[in-house]
């Protein structure tokens, strides 16, 4: 049986991706509820994020302490991404002001759990612009491993290049 999760040794995340994510989560969360983004790209040894999808609205439940994307939204994103050969490489979401930018127990247990997927936690409701102060985690050996700041530049390359940015809800996409 072939492995549906080829190993990823390095992720390339453009500053365009970081900026689009911050703008999107700030607009959706408004600093009063959590918000997030799906980062997509071709899954390979060195994987580049090429699309940022911002789930917001119908099918998303968000509050001050949680952010949940319903199955209908997963379906909408899957139907768009798969014909393009894209896979979900990372789930980024915010924690509000005063809550550490670290994965909570709920984040660890109820997010995507497949090898090589990244979980990124943006502090201060999405206002923290310094990505080195975000929480970076990778799922491996059946748990999320924290990518500590000393390892961050080795595993995550902040590069250049444009990303496609879309918003999505249970009914579809919009730019």
């Amino acid at each position: 049986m072939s492995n549906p999760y080829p190993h990823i040794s390095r992720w390339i995340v453009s500053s365009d991706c970081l900026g689009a994510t911050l703008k999107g989560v700030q607009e959706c969360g408004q600093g009063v509820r959590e918000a997030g983004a799906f980062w997509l790209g071709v899954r390979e040894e060195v994987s580049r994020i090429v699309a940022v999808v911002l789930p917001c609205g119908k099918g998303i439940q968000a509050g001050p302490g949680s952010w949940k994307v319903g199955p209908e939204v997963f379906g909408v994103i899957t139907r768009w991404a798969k014909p393009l050969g894209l896979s979900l490489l990372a789930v980024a979401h915010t924690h509000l002001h005063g809550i550490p930018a670290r994965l909570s127990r709920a984040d660890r247990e109820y997010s995507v759990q497949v090898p090589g997927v990244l979980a990124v936690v943006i502090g201060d409701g999405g206002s923290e612009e310094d990505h080195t102060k975000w929480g970076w985690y990778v799922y491996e050996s059946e748990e999320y491993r924290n990518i500590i700041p000393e390892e961050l530049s080795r595993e995550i390359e902040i590069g250049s290049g444009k990303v496609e940015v879309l918003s999505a809800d249970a009914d579809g996409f919009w730019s």
Partner: protein
Amino acid sequence: MNGELNQEGAQALPHAQCSESIDYEITVEYLPASHPFHKSYEGNETVATVRADAMTFFHVSDHRDRDTHQFFLEFDGRRLTDMAETLRQLLGRRHGAKFNLVEQITPGAIRNE
């Protein structure tokens, strides 16, 4: 070919081959995975069987703690909730179908720690 086009425009089997032994070529996509799950099934196999096989392939499982994390098959934008439904009942004369494996997270009293 003396067949019919199904609702998605795919080629259906010729009438003479629409028998009890019809095979259904099933593909299941899962957003985080790099490639899909493929398998042929007979018409009397159920949605539950396909879901279980796909979840095994993608190394995912339902779990319940303070919350429920459950996986569903989706077809034509519709979540398949009748696990006993057979592929013949679901697909009729289509001889192939693409499903998506999607996740549902049912909210509980979740707080960040």
